[in-house]
């Protein structure tokens, strides 16, 4: 077994809101291995972004993060002071967000915004920073890099802005890149180009990635392994191809079946009744999906299922596989 680059064990996140304390994430446990792309998939409000923001420590102040273990390259992140944390951010772990336009400072040229990472984390000279910035801009497929160096974000198209954001994330050569729905705001043709760029990065940089998306198509194209999240829990985990072929959790199953595409034309789409419960409506200590699940039985309303290993890395949290007879279909 290889050593993981990032390990999270039993992380809980709760929010202090006006009318009380609410659990947003429960018992999040997972690892990321070198040169691996881990996808996090789920509907909005399931806690995909929260998970990564909790790891990076950039949640708002009313969030309470607790965990048993959180290690980056065998070093516990718990003991890090602010200063050491800052050294990791941007240099070892970097992040890309959904809206490229708002993720860039409108008043600063894109070249400066990319180079700023090196200014903070290295002692390179100004010329060296500029040289490396332009190199990186070329690498992420920005045309006429020397000219674009001096342009402002609003002068670029959405796709190009996202390439700038990717350049910011890559320039310090981090070992782990977190991408939070980086293609969702883009048109499909541009999305395809950006995905191709991510593939190139994976092959050339040999870095690891956590890739958040609500879109199974994106996940299938870029990820090796995937975590399926529902209402603050990781309900299923495994290799992407395995999960798509053989989903075990009723949520994963119905989610995949409800995706429309041309092969389902003329057929009724599979649906899950109801919606993802909001933070305030969640029940603690029971299966979070029980209320919407067509296979649910007594145990689901009584306790939270344990993680059950199906095969190799494929695990699922569902009573059907621990207490029930298992799903046959």
């Amino acid at each position, binding site marked *: 077994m290889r050593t993981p680059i990032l390990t999270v064990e039993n992380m809980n996140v709760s929010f202090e809101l006006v009318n009380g304390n609410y659990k947003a994430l429960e018992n999040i446990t997972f690892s990321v291995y070198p040169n691996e792309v881990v996808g996090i998939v789920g*509907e*909005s409000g399931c806690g995909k972004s929260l998970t990564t923001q909790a790891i990076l420590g950039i949640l708002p102040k009313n969030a309470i993060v607790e965990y048993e273990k959180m290690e980056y390259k065998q070093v516990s992140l718990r003991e890090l002071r602010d200063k050491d944390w800052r050294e990791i951010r941007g240099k070892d772990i970097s992040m890309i967000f959904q809206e490229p336009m708002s993720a860039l400072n409108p008043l600063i040229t894109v070249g400066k915004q990319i180079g700023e990472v090196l200014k903070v984390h290295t002692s390179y000279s100004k010329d060296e920073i500029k040289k490396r910035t332009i190199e990186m801009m070329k690498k992420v497929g920005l*045309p006429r890099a020397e000219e674009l160096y001096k342009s402002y974000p609003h002068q670029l*198209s*959405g*796709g*190009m802005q996202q390439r700038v954001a990717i350049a910011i994330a890559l320039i310090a050569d981090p070992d782990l890149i977190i991408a939070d729905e980086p293609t969702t705001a883009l*048109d*499909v*043709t*541009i*999305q*395809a*180009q950006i*995905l*191709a760029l991510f593939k190139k990065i994976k092959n050339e940089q040999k870095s690891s990635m956590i890739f958040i998306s*609500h*879109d*199974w*198509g*994106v996940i*299938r*194209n870029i990820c090796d392994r995937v975590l399926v999240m529902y209402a603050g829990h990781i309900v299923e985990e495994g290799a992407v*191809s395995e999960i*798509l*072929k053989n989903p075990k959790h009723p949520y994963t199953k*119905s*989610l*995949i079946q*409800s*995706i*429309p*595409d*041309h092969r*389902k*034309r003329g057929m*009724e*789409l*599979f*649906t*899950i009744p109801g*919606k*993802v419960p909001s933070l305030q409506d969640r029940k603690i200590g029971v299966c979070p999906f029980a209320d919407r699940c067509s296979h649910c039985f007594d145990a689901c309303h009584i306790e939270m299922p344990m993680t059950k290993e199906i095969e190799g890395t494929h695990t699922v949290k569902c009573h059907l596989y621990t207490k029930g007879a298992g799903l046959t279909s």
Partner: protein
Amino acid sequence: MTIPIIEVENVYKYYKQARKSFSDKNKYVKAVNGVSFSLYEGESFGLVGESGSGKSTLGQVILQLINQTSGTVKYRGKNVSTYTKKELKAWRKQVQIVFQNPYASLNPKKTIGWIMEEPLNIHRIGNKAFRRQRVMEVLEEVGLDHTFMDRYPHELSGGQRQRVAIASAIILEPEFMVIDEGVSALDVSVQAQILNLLKRLQRKYRLTYLFISHDLNVVQYFCDRIAVMYLGEIVEIGETEELGRSLKHPYTKALFSSILSLDESEELKLLDGNLPSLLEI
């Protein structure tokens, strides 16, 4: 499938850019640039294109929410621009629209009951008791119960709001409906619920849909025919089954090759070179 319900003939919509100084010449944004097609009764017609391609403008021109610069829109053979005020109002009973953002498409200051009843009030249909009865019927039809009558939009989830928007559109039993990115803002599981609902309503009311979307997967699932819009023009049009097989326009090729399939055998293939995006032109 012989008589078209909607005919769009050579429609142009240019927006004049405000002149900023005296030396400026008038400049135009060509949102819709010479578009013609027909919609037939009972079909779902998909209009795909990326943001800024003019698909939403076209949808609103067809419903005369925006006036075209030139060209004609015909409804059952009659030019809608020649309607008198009275005819126009009567026509508005037959055609409806559902917008993308369920947060902006319902008046935040009105109850669901009021919003649902509004179309009946506008057209003075029935008495108070009848209208109330009808609102409850239609709410049930879209899967909401009568307790929603007294609630305000902000108390509803995105999917529920979209159901209300659809319900208030079908309460007049229209023949034709524009769905302008009507499921794009929703999560997959909710999106499936709404798509099924739209299909069911179509069968029941013999509705014709103009389904505007950027999502090819959804359009290919939902529509019988598809038109692809690019830079204000329809660059390709055809039956859904056939369109995918024989693509001619480079943009449509790029678009179809960008579809992310879940099928093992289909790998994402990329065309060489960057396709000019709208913003870079």
